């Protein structure tokens, strides 16, 4: 599948408040954003700003109260193999070996027979061919997340949604995995939306960064990262951008406190 643009127009979503089920709390308020085909965009913001909710809406796992979500020109109505989703927890199926996990999407779509070769190709791509017959509980966190990425990518999604995929990894593994994800992105040219709470990760990886503020979740600002890849984490431009974003995030946090009061 080709990479595809993603457009979100004035999407709102509310959930019943946990302490008072009769009232609904607005989680996302009038979100509009669009990603060009093949673009890598990060969403950052304090916890509770609705980042994960937005990803679930795009994945089709939840539906919005109002607004419109489009992949290319197709409205999103239900989950579909053309929109892959990778969570912070790799969520590999523990009862399947690594190979069977990676080919799960092909089995689910009933195309394993035609595309069996791709399984080996994707296991090589993420460097797990040695572990083909290992079960997920034998894998380290980084390896498990690589398997989860391969499992999502084997469907050649038009859009890949990443929900803090590297959040549970230690700092060194995480930096290596950032390169890995970039490599996969460049190899497949899929449209990628990355939710993260790590500013460095957002700057290091994305074409654009969207900063969200919580309660209700909305997009405060969009920043284009005009740096050449591979990016230097200690370059002057990188650090200046980091400072700017940190400031914006503080503002976003404060405004949410005001809203609450």
């Amino acid at each position, binding site marked *: 599948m080709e990479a595809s643009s993603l457009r979100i127009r004035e999407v709102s979503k509310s959930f019943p408040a946990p302490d008072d089920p009769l009232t609904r709390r607005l989680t996302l308020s009038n979100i509009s954003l669009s990603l060009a085909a093949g673009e890598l965009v990060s969403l950052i913001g304090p916890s509770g700003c609705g980042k994960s909710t937005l990803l679930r809406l795009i994945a089709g796992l939840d539906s919005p109260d109002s607004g419109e979500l489009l992949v290319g020109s197709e409205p999103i109505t239900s989950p579909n193999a053309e929109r892959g989703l990778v969570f912070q927890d790799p969520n590999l199926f523990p009862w399947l070996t690594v190979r069977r996990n990676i080919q799960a999407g092909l089995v689910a*779509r009933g195309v394993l027979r035609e595309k069996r070769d791709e399984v080996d190709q994707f296991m090589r791509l993420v460097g797990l061919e040695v572990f083909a017959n290992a079960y997920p509980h034998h894998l380290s966190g980084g390896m498990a997340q690589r398997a989860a990425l391969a*499992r999502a990518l084997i469907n050649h999604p038009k859009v890949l949604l990443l929900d803090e995929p590297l959040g549970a990894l230690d700092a060194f593994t995480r930096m*290596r995995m950032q390169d890995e994800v970039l490599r996969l992105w460049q190899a497949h040219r899929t449209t990628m939306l990355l939710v993260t709470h790590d500013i460095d990760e957002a700057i290091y990886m994305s074409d654009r960064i969207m900063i969200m503020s919580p309660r209700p979740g909305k997009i405060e600002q969009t920043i284009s990262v005009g740096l050449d890849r591979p990016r230097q984490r200690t370059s002057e431009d990188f650090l200046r951008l980091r400072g700017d974003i940190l400031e914006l995030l503080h503002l976003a946090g404060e405004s949410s406190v005001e809203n609450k009061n």
Partner: protein
Amino acid sequence: MRPEKHNSRPEISPPESTTQLPSAPTHANVDAIERMERGSELGWRAHLAVPLAALVALAIHLLFSKRAPAVETHSYTLLFYEIVGVSIVLSIAQRFWMPLRSWMRHMCPILTAAILLLGLWDIVTFGFQLLPMPYFPGPAAVLRSLINDRVLLLDSTWHSLALLLSGYTVGVLVGLISGICIGWSTPIRYWGMPLLKVVGPIPATAWIPLAMVVSPSAVVSAAGLIALAVWFPVTMLTASGISNTRASYLDVARTLGAGRAYLVFRVAIPAAIPNIFIGLFMGLGASFLTLVVAESVGVKSGLGWYVSWAQGWAEYGKVYAALIIMAAFFSTLMTLLFKLRDHVLVWQKGVIKW
């Protein structure tokens, strides 16, 4: 393009180092144990414990057996001669065969205790007759019943096995189907759960009066009762396993393009397998109970029937003989189910050992 080697090395650990289940000894441990065992001989205590215990038990028996007719105690004394002989042969053989040595190291204490317990039983019953007869025969009398009645016992075991397996199979199949339906579908859960909650906890044996009336034969009604006893725990545990499937597994599967068949058969059911096995174990226990009760009230064959028949003739030696067979029979079935579980759940860490 592959990640460079120095890039990926720190997080790739060889699978050997982590494939061990937590309960199993690690390679390092096994090495240490092997070294220890190769280095040290089996101590003289371990050598002599079993034959000595057998001689003690034999002496006890011979001491009291003067007043009994020799034919009644012959096979029991023979058994001990055999134990003494075999244990001496084994303690010589272990010098040349390592696996036997570690097996003996493990088994000798418990075998010794078992033999001494036999001796104690002999003293209390056959020796001083401290317990009322004929309810508490000595070990020699039980062994004699076991040998004399072996044909009928074997036949009873065979009938019990056939009845148990037919009831258990039906119960498991129906239980799996109803459990999956109740666990997966909200409307079925709404209508099925109250029925399950009301009917399920009634012990299957309480249905015996009704089962005798409605069913064409005692064997069929017994099989039905066993199936009922198995059905409840299997349904309950399967349903809870299915409905507690981690939502994120289902979410992931849906974003991979899974339809309903995949979600049920390739996600929810595998995720529920650990729970299902708990239901299978509970069902197996319930089936033993129901089998024995059903056989002693209606069915005219099987171990349960044998026990109540022997009791009717006040032949308690036979009662105990049948109990010993039952212990071996049920324990074997349990072990087989555990083996199946270990085979199916290789992907799970830290399962209970039997």
